[in-house]
């Protein structure tokens, strides 16, 4: 059962935020509201009239539209074509449609250009196209599923301006998020969901992120920890002049990594900020040995590993929490104990010589499940049947179990619930204290600022800026992420900052 006894009332002309941990049942609820899934019991009423949605078409006919977290746009079509696709009957596909799109765009300040190709648009523009698509179909109630997950802070502000426009025109917005700071700044009403049921509502004017987070988790959050620097001056990983070029889909050779150099010392967390797709994944792949750089030298703990194969690098002490755990970190259809062996098949306790030691591997899987609090009925279930947070805990446990010298953590808490998030942070901190070097890549700027000892900003394959995590704000990082600022970022105006989460580290911030 994903949801039970959900009660929500959304007032017309408001932004209503729906918050809850991952796996709390937000998405299921949205699917029901949008007609993608049918409830076993209960009713939905729009404008006081009871309705049944058998499919998204019914929902749209009732003026309910959905903007998905993952955009559903065809890259090789223009904005106009994308918008009319599937709704050709409404205003045709020609000038009438174009005029209608312009009208909507102006009415809500969306700033849409109708004839550019979607592939030429940035993430924020694509999102606006998605919103326009829904409005074009006549929606009066918009459901936005985690709309800010892909945006940098400046773009989030712009999106919120758009939402306020929509609200002013009498439209209703249901906003799903687990970023509490954002929720508080944009929502008129907040409903909290926990374990598939509504546990309360909150008034954003009189609620703090901490109270909201505790409502979400159902218990008090771990108290913030004082930061003590554990950085030593012993280099663990040295990257010198790493460059990699790749052929992009248009057949053009592009530098995806361009002269990247940095050093991570024992006990140091180096955070890399950047909009996704600026070379972070390639950097991880290159350090792991899955891609071969055009030039550059990698030194791990004094040994040149530039030409070592991936397995050797892993055996030498590189652990990796991959960005895409389903593609790179797990065998989804294999049981947990086999997933525990993955990536460490040559190491103890998984094998003795060339033969697997199933008994020891299973025993150790049970230990990981226990120590890292992986919620599972047993170690024989497939990895696919665990929730994202528990899958991630298993991966973290596995990588930490081989005493890594260097941990690469790419978006370690993405799609992970608040409780697991705090645990993963604690584990990274503990390991750091024992001399682990960490390369942290994250789209969550608060996480980056909270965990890192050193911050670098990556833009178009180059490290363009660095910053001191003790003073920098997400906004300042954000402007470097879009290429607007380079060099050493100095924190400018400590007082002029109104964003609530700017002062919170991940220690006490729940998303």
């Amino acid at each position, binding site marked *: 059962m994903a949801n039970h006894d959900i009660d929500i009332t959304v007032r017309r002309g408001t932004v209503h935020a729906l918050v809850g941990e991952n796996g709390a049942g937000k998405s299921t609820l949205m699917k029901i509201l949008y007609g993608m899934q049918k409830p076993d019991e209960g009713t939905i009423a729009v404008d006081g009239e009871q309705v049944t949605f058998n499919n998204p078409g019914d929902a749209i006919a009732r003026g309910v539209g959905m903007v998905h977290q993952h955009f559903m746009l065809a890259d090789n079509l223009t904005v106009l074509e994308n918008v009319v696709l599937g709704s050709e009957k409404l205003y045709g596909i020609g000038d009438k449609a174009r005029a209608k799109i312009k009208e909507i765009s102006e009415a809500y300040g969306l700033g849409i250009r109708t004839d550019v190709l979607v592939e030429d648009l940035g993430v924020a523009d694509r999102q606006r196209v998605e919103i326009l698509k829904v409005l074009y179909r006549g929606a009066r109630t918009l459901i936005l599923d985690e709309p800010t997950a892909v945006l940098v802070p400046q773009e989030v502000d712009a999106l919120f301006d758009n939402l306020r426009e929509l609200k002013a025109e009498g439209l209703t917005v249901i906003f799903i998020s687990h970023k509490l700071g954002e929720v508080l700044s944009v929502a008129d009403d907040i409903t909290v969901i926990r374990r598939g049921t509504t546990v309360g509502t909150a008034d954003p004017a009189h609620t703090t992120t901490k109270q909201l987070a505790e409502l979400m988790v159902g218990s008090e959050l771990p108290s913030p920890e004082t930061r003590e620097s554990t950085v030593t001056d012993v280099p663990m990983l040295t990257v010198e002049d790493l460059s990699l070029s790749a052929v992009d889909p248009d057949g053009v050779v592009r530098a995806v990594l361009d002269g990247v150099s940095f050093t991570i010392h024992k006990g140091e967390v180096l955070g890399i900020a950047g909009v996704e797709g600026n070379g972070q994944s390639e950097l991880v792949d290159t350090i792991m040995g899955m891609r071969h750089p055009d030039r550059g030298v990698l030194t791990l703990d004094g040994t040149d590993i530039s030409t070592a194969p991936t397995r050797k690098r892993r055996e030498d002490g590189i652990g990796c929490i991959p960005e895409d755990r389903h593609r790179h970190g797990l065998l989804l259809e294999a049981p947990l104990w086999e997933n525990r062996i993955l990536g460490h098949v040559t190491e103890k306790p998984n094998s003795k010589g060339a033969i697997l030691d199933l008994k020891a591997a299973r025993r150790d899987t049970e230990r990981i499940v226990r120590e890292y609090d992986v919620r599972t009925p*047993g170690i024989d279930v497939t990895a696919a049947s665990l929730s994202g947070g528990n899958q991630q805990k298993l991966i973290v446990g596995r990588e930490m179990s081989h005493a890594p010298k260097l941990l690469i953590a790419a978006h370690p808490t993405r799609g992970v619930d608040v409780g697991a998030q705090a645990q993963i942070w604690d584990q990274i901190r503990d390991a750091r204290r024992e001399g682990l070097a960490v390369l942290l890549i994250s789209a969550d700027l608060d996480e980056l600022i909270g965990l890192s000892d050193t911050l670098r900003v990556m833009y178009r394959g180059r490290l363009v800026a660095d910053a001191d995590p003790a003073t920098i704000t997400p906004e300042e990082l954000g402007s470097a992420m879009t290429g607007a600022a380079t060099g050493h970022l100095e924190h400018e105006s400590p007082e002029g900052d109104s964003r609530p989460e700017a002062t919170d580290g991940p220690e006490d911030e729940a998303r």
Partner: protein
Amino acid sequence: MKKIDKERLLLGIAAPLLAVVAAFLITALVLAATGKEPFSAFGIMFDYGVKSDSQVYIINKATTYYLAGLAVAIGFRMNLFNIGVDGQYRLAAFFAAAVGGALTLPGIVQIPLIIITAMIVGAMWAGIAGVLKTTRGVSEVVSTIMLNFIATAIIGYLLQPGRLGHLDAAGTEVATTPLPESSHFFEFPTTPTPIIGFVVIAAIAGVAYWFTLARTRFGFDLRTVGRSDTAAAASGVNVKKMVVTSMLLSGAMAGLIGMPTLLNESYAYGSGFPLGIGFTGIAIALLGRNHPVGIALSAILWAFLERGAQQLEFEGYDREIVGVMQGVIVLCVVIAYEVVRRFGLKRQQRRVGEKLAAQARTNDKTEVSA
């Protein structure tokens, strides 16, 4: 936990069983459509199939099929579709027969020599496809099909009088020089016909297959690539090397397919050497879920069906009906596995969810009461 395990086993058996039953039903419809009474046909097949001489036939035939199934299954476990098992085993058997016919060594030396020759030839032939895939990105499906044709042409060229072939006394068949008596493999003296000794080798191959895949590091790497090549690469497996290695292994196993016939029956490679067993192997591996025991059962089923087909002919049925049945089984198997797999995955996800929710609820209660 035990419950989920039992369930997985049940689901595992459900799919092939479902497929076989569905295939029988569909075949019954086909028979009925041609105006023949279906169930008496099945009765004939069964009665004939369980006779003692049929049993020997089935075991002997299944030995060959089992090896074919294993050869294909090695590829399947890697997500490689080795359609070329057919060409590999024929080429392997041909060269092994040629080598065996040219030498007269003691059996203890010559039999292993023949077998090893076959395995090496099979491996090399499959290896070509592996190398093409890793270096040039050629799909193994395409390259192995092409290699089948090339193998046929090579054998056709070499199997001629004056080259490696000899016309027999009757002047009807061209074959390689017969193996010397010492190179005949042993037999179990059962009545009325003996069971071939190669069944032992097939069993050993099955155990080796199971052990390598389930208990060794290498097998784990191989299965990892089959499940997710991205995860395998990230975990440190050299995927390209693994592709070539597993093609070599699949080919080496394919090399064994012709050996029961060569060493226990024909003692030479002639124009009458069985064809198309590689394709049968694909069906058998599919039906047997790439599992060593499953492959054995489906090899026996296949041999049983073919035995039954012989009798059907005498009783006035078309023997092609068994071909229809085999084809339908394969189709049903593919569908049934996918259906059962999805069902099982969903069911497990739901059960895990329920179990955790129940745990969470009891936790809540204890918190409240505490």
